[in-house]
């Protein structure tokens, strides 16, 4: 006896293989769908970035052109900056010479005559003066004596050659140093 299989060949697949094929198709389909979604999203995002980048480039070029158009203002600002740097540097080195002399002259009583006066950048002051009365001389010495809370003062005061001159005035010379605390 001979067995003859009359069923079509395609129906001969086993259940196990059928399952495997359908699983493979489903997996390939899901992966393909996910990838499609990802690539479509990427495409849209890429287009958005492209447009945004171009828009920014245009805006940047416009701003750079405006910046360049204001070059004279920028150059003037540069000049002011450079000059102010120089001014600050020089001002930091300046000694207020008129202030030192004015301060000293304010301490000298009326009648006292300044014969010579030398004031240096370091604050060193040398003065030769004559006072007709001893009171004027003592008043000057008293005025020169600084109080502890004085922010600017004459210190290291040395007196030389106190004598009576031809006009019977007291002639003297004083050496001192002007100090100012900030």
């Amino acid at each position, binding site marked *: 006896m001979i067995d003859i299989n009359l069923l079509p060949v395609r129906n001969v697949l086993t259940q196990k293989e059928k399952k495997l094929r359908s699983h493979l198709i489903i997996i390939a389909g899901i992966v*393909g769908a996910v990838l499609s979604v990802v690539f479509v999203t990427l495409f849209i995002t890429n287009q958005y970035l492209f447009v945004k980048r171009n828009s920014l480039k245009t805006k940047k070029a416009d701003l750079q052109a405006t910046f360049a158009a204001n070059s004279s203002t920028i150059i003037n600002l540069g000049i002011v900056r450079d000059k102010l740097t120089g001014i600050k540097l020089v001002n930091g*080195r300046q000694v207020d010479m008129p202030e030192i002399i004015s301060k000293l002259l304010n301490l000298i009583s009326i009648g006292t005559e300044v014969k010579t006066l030398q004031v240096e950048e370091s604050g060193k002051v040398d003065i030769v003066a004559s006072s007709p009365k001893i009171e004027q001389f003592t008043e000057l010495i008293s005025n020169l004596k600084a109080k502890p809370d004085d922010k600017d003062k004459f210190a290291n005061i040395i007196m030389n050659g106190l004598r009576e001159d031809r006009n019977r005035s007291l002639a003297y010379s004083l050496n001192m140093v002007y100090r100012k605390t900030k």
Partner: protein
Amino acid sequence: MKKISASSLNLRSIWFYIAVGAAFIIEAYLAFIVLPGTVSSMMDKRSEIEADEKEVADLTTVVGSIQKIDQAELETAVAKTTAAMPNEKKTSGIIYGMSKLAGDNGVVVNNLEFSPGLVSTRSGTIVSTEPVGQAVGSGVKQISATLTVSGELSKIVDFLVELRRSSQIIGVNRVEYALSASRANTGIISLMIYYQPPKNNAQVDPKSVPFMSEADKEIISDLPETDVFTVQQ
């Protein structure tokens, strides 16, 4: 018959697996080769956009600030700071300005000498070579000068006060005053005259535009309006 059917079945199975395999290979290629490359390129584009956004924001701020600048105020600032710290020695301007300031304060200028080099007013004319500037720092140069004046001590002090307040920054290093037996008052004033040759500011980076601060404006407002050291034409 049975042998033929099995062969046909195997052939169809092979094509199915080749097709599914090809699909997986393509998907793997897209997922592991194309996708990272695309994402990386987009990240680069995103970084570029972020950098551009920052640059545009900075430029917008800078350009906005530049456009808000009061041009008249800026021109005054340029004029005042340039008068205070001139671009050149301006020796003739110094002679002119000193004489004017001294005259206004009751002091007579006897002589003004610049050194090294010599420009003297003793003969009434400017003579000899131009003095050579010495570098101080920040592009500032200085020339020394000795000014001899006649006048009472209080007037000389007034003159020094005015000199300190004047348009150009001039340092006073030393003051010598003497009252002679003939009652002649003489003052010898050692001066330091500053100037600053201009720098080339043609190329300015938008990130470093030197805007004036409030402190700068205060310094400028303290500078005098009129430049006494410029010879009027």
